[in-house]
C-alpha cells in the first residue's frame, strides 16, 4: 500500500467559480477519501427575516442565487401564499412557469459552457454562452432584469407579457432549438468529451437515492425525482416526464442537462399555448400566520424554502435548503476511487452553486 497524502482542493481553483474546499486523501493518484468544507461565503441571509417585512424579503430570497434567482423568489412567494391560503391568478402561475423554464435554460447553458471550459474546449464554451445570451435577452425584455428579475411578488407577478410578445417568443424558440441541436450533438457524441466523462465519477442509483441526491445528479443515476411533477405553478396543466439517464457517471449528468434544455423549450411552448387571460396578482391584506415547506425544482434540483410566520410583518423563520447542499454527500461518494486528474470534472458535474448553498 502506498503512503497516503492529503491534497487540498479549493477554495480557489481554476474550475471553481465559487469557493468550496475539499481535502483529498490520495494513495498515489487515486482519491481514497474526501472531506468537504464550506463557509467561505456564508451571508446569513436567513436571519434577515427579522429585519425585513415578509413582502420585502422576496428581494432577499431572489438574491440567494445569481443564476436561478427567479425560482428562489417564486418558491418563497409560493410558500407565503400557501400559508395565507391565497389563490393566485392562473395567468400569474403560467408566467411564473415560463420564466422558471427560461431560468433553467440559462442555468443549464451556463453550466454547459463552464463544463466545456473545464475540459479545455474553449470553442464549445463560447458557443454555449452565445446561445445563453438569447435566453438572457428574453428574460431582460420580459422582466427588466438579466440576473435578478424581480418580477415575482406575493400574490402574483409584477409584469405581464403581452400575447403578441408571447407569440414572438414561441416563434423565436424554433431557431433557438435548431441551434441547441447542433450544440447538444457535440456534448453527447464528441469523442474527446466522452473520453473525459464516461465512467468518471459514477454514482449508483441506490447511492443517489440513499444519499439524498436531487436534480440532474439524481436523474443522471436513474432516480426519477422532479418536483415539477408535484404540479406547483402551472406544471400540473402541462405534459412532462422527468429526464433520466442510467449510467450514473459524469456523462449521464451532462446528458440529463442537455436533454432538459429541449424539455424546457417544450414546456414553454405548452405554457404559451395554454396561458389564460386575466389578472396577474391578487392583493394581500393580512400577515402570514402558520408554516409551510415550499418546494420547487431548481435547475440543480429540489429547492425547499421553509417559512414560518406568527401573524406579524416579520417571519419567525426562513430556512432555505438548496440542492447543492444536499448534493455534497453524493459528491463525496463520487470522488472516492477516482483519479486526481478527474476531480475538477466530477466536482463540476454536480453543477455546484456554493453561494446558494451557503446563503
Amino acid at each position, binding site marked *: 500500500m502506498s503512503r497516503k497524502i492529503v491534497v487540498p482542493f479549493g477554495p480557489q481553483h481554476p474550475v471553481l467559480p465559487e469557493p468550496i474546499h475539499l481535502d483529498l486523501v490520495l494513495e498515489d493518484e487515486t482519491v481514497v477519501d474526501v472531506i468537504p468544507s464550506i463557509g467561505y461565503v456564508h451571508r446569513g441571509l436567513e436571519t434577515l427575516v*427579522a429585519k425585513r417585512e415578509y413582502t420585502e424579503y422576496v428581494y432577499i430570497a431572489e438574491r440567494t442565487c445569481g443564476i436561478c434567482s427567479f425560482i428562489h423568489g417564486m418558491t418563497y412567494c409560493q410558500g407565503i401564499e400557501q400559508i395565507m391560503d391565497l389563490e393566485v391568478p392562473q395567468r400569474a402561475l403560467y408566467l411564473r412557469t415560463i420564466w422558471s423554464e427560461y431560468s433553467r435554460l440559462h442555468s443549464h447553458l451556463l453550466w454547459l459552457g463552464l463544463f466545456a471550459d473545464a475540459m479545455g474546449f474553449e470553442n464549445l464554451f463560447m458557443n454555449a454562452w452565445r446561445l445563453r445570451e438569447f435566453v438572457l435577452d428574453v428574460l431582460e425584455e420580459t422582466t427588466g432584469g438579466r440576473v435578478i428579475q424581480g418580477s415575482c411578488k406575493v400574490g402574483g407577478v409584477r409584469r405581464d407579457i403581452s400575447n403578441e410578445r408571447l407569440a414572438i417568443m414561441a416563434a423565436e424558440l424554433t431557431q433557438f432549438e435548431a441551434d441547441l441541436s447542433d450544440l447538444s450533438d457535440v456534448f453527447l457524441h464528441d469523442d474527446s468529451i466522452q473520453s473525459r466523462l464516461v465512467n468518471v465519477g459514477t454514482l449508483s442509483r441506490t447511492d443517489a437515492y440513499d444519499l439524498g441526491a436531487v436534480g440532474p445528479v439524481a436523474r443522471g443515476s436513474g432516480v426519477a425525482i422532479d418536483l415539477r411533477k408535484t404540479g406547483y405553478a402551472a406544471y400540473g396543466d402541462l405534459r412532462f416526464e422527468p429526464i433520466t439517464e442510467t449510467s450514473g457517471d459524469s456523462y449521464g449528468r451532462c446528458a440529463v442537462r442537455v436533454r432538459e434544455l429541449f424539455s424546457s423549450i417544450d414546456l414553454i411552448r405548452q405554457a404559451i399555448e395554454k396561458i389564460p387571460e386575466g389578472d396577474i396578482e391578487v392583493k394581500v391584506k393580512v400577515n402570514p400566520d402558520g408554516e409551510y*415547506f415550499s418546494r420547487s425544482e431548481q435547475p440543480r434540483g429540489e429547492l425547499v424554502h421553509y417559512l414560518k410566520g406568527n401573524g406579524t410583518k416579520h417571519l419567525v423563520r426562513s430556512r432555505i435548503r438548496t440542492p447543492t*447542499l444536499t448534493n455534497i454527500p453524493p459528491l463525496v461518494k463520487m470522488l472516492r476511487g477516482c483519479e486526481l486528474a478527474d476531480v475538477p470534472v466530477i466536482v463540476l458535474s454536480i453543477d455546484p452553486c456554493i453561494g446558494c448553498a451557503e446563503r
Partner: protein
Amino acid sequence: MMKIEQQTTVVIGIEHLIGRVEQFRKGGYRLVQVNCTKIGEEFEINYSFEKDYRFENIRIIISPDSEVPSISGMYWGAFVYENEMHDLFGVAVKGMNIDFNGNFIKTSIPYPFRNPQFQGEGPCQGK
C-alpha cells in the same frame, strides 16, 4: 389549476427520534432536509422525508442545553444538516458520522443564529 402539496408534521419526543427515523428509513423514504428554528428559548427541529412525492415531517422541541442524537447512522448524508445546525445554532448533536467540530461553516462569530445580533440599521418595525 395549481396542485397543493399535502404536508404532515408530527411532534414527537426526542427519545422517539431514532425510532421514527428508522421507520422512515425502512419505509424507503429519502431525507429531504433537517432544519432548526429558535422559538423563544427553545429550538424546534424539523426532519423532512419524502417518498413518491409524499412529504412528511417529524418535529422535536428541545431546550438549548439538550443533546440531539445524530441520524447520520441511518441517513449518511445527514451530516451536512447536523453540522450546519451545530455551527449556526450551537445545537449539540451526538454521534455524527463526520463531525467537523464547528468548522463546517466558518463564521466570524460562533453560533450566529443562536442569538442573532444586528449591527447598524435596526429592525424596520412599523415602516
